[in-house]
């Protein structure tokens, strides 16, 4: 259980760091959002003080000392109040995020499962059959890994979407003809619209897993316990999965955090290109319309989601590696 507590402690610190960064960035870099907005609006005459006042109230800007603001900020968060969105005024930020979140969560989790499953599976076989045709394909993953998400999304959209017309060009489902609900039409439409965004994420994301798993397999296969499993006359599949791959996957799991970071970045780019109504798309819109409360709320929620995913993976790691359970 020491392991669990240590991890919980770590993520508490990470969460606090994310909250604090979110609080500090706007205040350290530019003073406050009201100044930025006013500097954009400013034409010939200075804005009337009432206008500034109204904006300050809306953004919760105050002239209190930083630490007073900090605690006020934390108190607000504790009550779940993320402020009011400017773009979707008067909708609270929480509501806007609540509408975007399910799309992103669905897309990311499905794409992530496919990426990890396929990457680890193929990497395992490539490493096991060193020198086979599959292993020979490994160098091409280098190219896949270096493709920018944004560009890949554009290409897929251009060739598979616009060019061949196989897939719809944007949105999460056919807004004009299908109503949201648990109907075959709706689900089919969602899958169809989600296919290209998911494909973008899988293609760019898979290379890292494939290569990492393949190289760890090669290293692991020289271990005595794999040779011994062969000496025991176990079936090759059993040796590959339970002896080689079970051990080879562990270092890849620890690299999950970094991979997830890239994945979330790709998610934002993908959502923008496909106008997919998730949090990444919302984030960019918030940036475009200087919707600071929404921007900060989104960053916060993305951070929390990523931290939660990492925590889950750490728990999983504890399950598949008996050594960390005890040692803690």
């Amino acid at each position, binding site marked *: 259980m020491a392991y669990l507590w240590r991890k919980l402690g*770590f*993520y508490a*610190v*990470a969460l606090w*760091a*994310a909250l604090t*960064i*979110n609080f500090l*960035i*706007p205040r350290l*870099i*530019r003073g406050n959002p009201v100044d*930025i907005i006013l500097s954009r609006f400013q034409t010939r005459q200075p804005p009337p003080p009432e206008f500034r006042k109204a904006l300050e109230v809306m953004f919760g800007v105050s002239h209190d000392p930083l630490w007073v603001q900090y605690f006020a900020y934390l108190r607000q968060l504790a009550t779940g109040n993320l402020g009011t969105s400017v773009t979707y005024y008067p909708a609270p930020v929480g509501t806007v995020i609540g509408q975007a979140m399910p799309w992103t969560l669905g897309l990311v989790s499905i794409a992530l499962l496919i990426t990890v499953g396929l990457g680890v599976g193929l990497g395992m076989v490539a490493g096991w059959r*060193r020198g086979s045709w599959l292993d020979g394909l490994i*160098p091409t993953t*280098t*190219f896949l*890994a*270096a*493709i*920018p*998400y*944004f*560009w*890949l999304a*554009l*290409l897929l*959209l*251009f060739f598979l979407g*616009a060019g061949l017309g196989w897939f719809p060009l944007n949105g999460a489902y056919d807004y004009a003809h299908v109503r949201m609900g648990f109907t075959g039409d709706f689900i089919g439409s969602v899958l169809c619209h989600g296919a290209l965004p998911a494909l973008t994420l899988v293609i760019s994301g898979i290379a890292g897993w494939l290569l990492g798993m393949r*190289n760890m397999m*090669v*290293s692991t296969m*020289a271990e005595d316990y794999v040779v011994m499993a062969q000496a025991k006359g176990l079936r090759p599949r059993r040796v590959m999965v339970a002896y080689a791959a079970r051990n080879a996957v562990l270092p890849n799991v620890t690299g999950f*955090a*970094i991979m*997830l*970071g890239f994945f*979330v*970045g790709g998610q*934002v*780019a993908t959502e*923008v*290109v496909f106008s997919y109504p998730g949090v*990444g798309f919302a*984030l*960019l819109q918030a*940036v*475009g319309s200087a919707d600071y409360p929404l*921007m*900060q709320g*989104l*960053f916060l929620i*993305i*951070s929390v989601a*990523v*931290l939660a995913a*990492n925590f889950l993976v750490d728990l999983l790691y504890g399950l598949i590696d008996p050594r960390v359970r005890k040692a803690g």
Partner: protein
Amino acid sequence: MTAVVTLAAPRDRVLGLPRSGKLVAGLVIVGFFALLAIAGPILAGDPEALVAGRLEPPSAEQWLGSTDTGQSVLAQLMYATRGSMLIGVTAGVLGTVGSLLIGVVGGYFGGWVDEAFSLLSNVALVIPTLPLLILVADYVEDGGPFTYALIISLISWAGPARVIRSQVMSLRNRDYVDAARVSGEPGWRIMVFQILPNLVPVIASGFVWAIIGAILTESGLSALGLGGGAVTSWGGMLYYAQNGSALSMGSWWWFVPPGLFIAALGTGLSLINFSIDELMNPRLRKAAA
């Protein structure tokens, strides 16, 4: 007989790395882009000049066609190459220096310094970087390329720092380091003369990854329209291509080359890194043979 001898003894090392097809291919690709970045803009002419009609496909005069305002895509690509590589290398250097400081100091001193630095890098690793960068880039607005490089490097030090730290921890307990410590050498001398030379492969590998990461990150930011608004990078070109209806007009010559360049340079850099990895992990090399 002499012929056999000369054939049997080729130069088997390049830049101190075992010579391999991967390494040579990587160096050729990266060298090509370095050359483009230096000489390209001089040869290409003004990227802002209106030299052709709107969205004209590649032709004998305009090898890569024109943009929606009639500018030369080729000229823009040359300038973008310089801009992207400049930001990539600058951010790579800054990130590597940062990771080196955090990794070496933490790993060498151990104790609470190490605890604190480790916690810092681990926290930095789990906080999603692109959303954070979007936030920061928006507040910074129109900084120069150096500002962007600095911002990008702020998020790229954590991974390499962790690798360097573990390497330093294992080096710290080697006999010759102990010997130096016993003979009264000061800590900074041990770090610079005993530990640093042994970190070179790790640092080199971290540096190359940092450049790849920085170029990809910068292109992502710019493509989203957060790169300061100028066409000075591959990502910036993508942004303008997407907003200039290159997609709906079918003007592939505008948006295909920048992405292809990013992927090609990234591939070249990764190939170099494989050679470094194989140097550090001989098992991989044996597998490749």
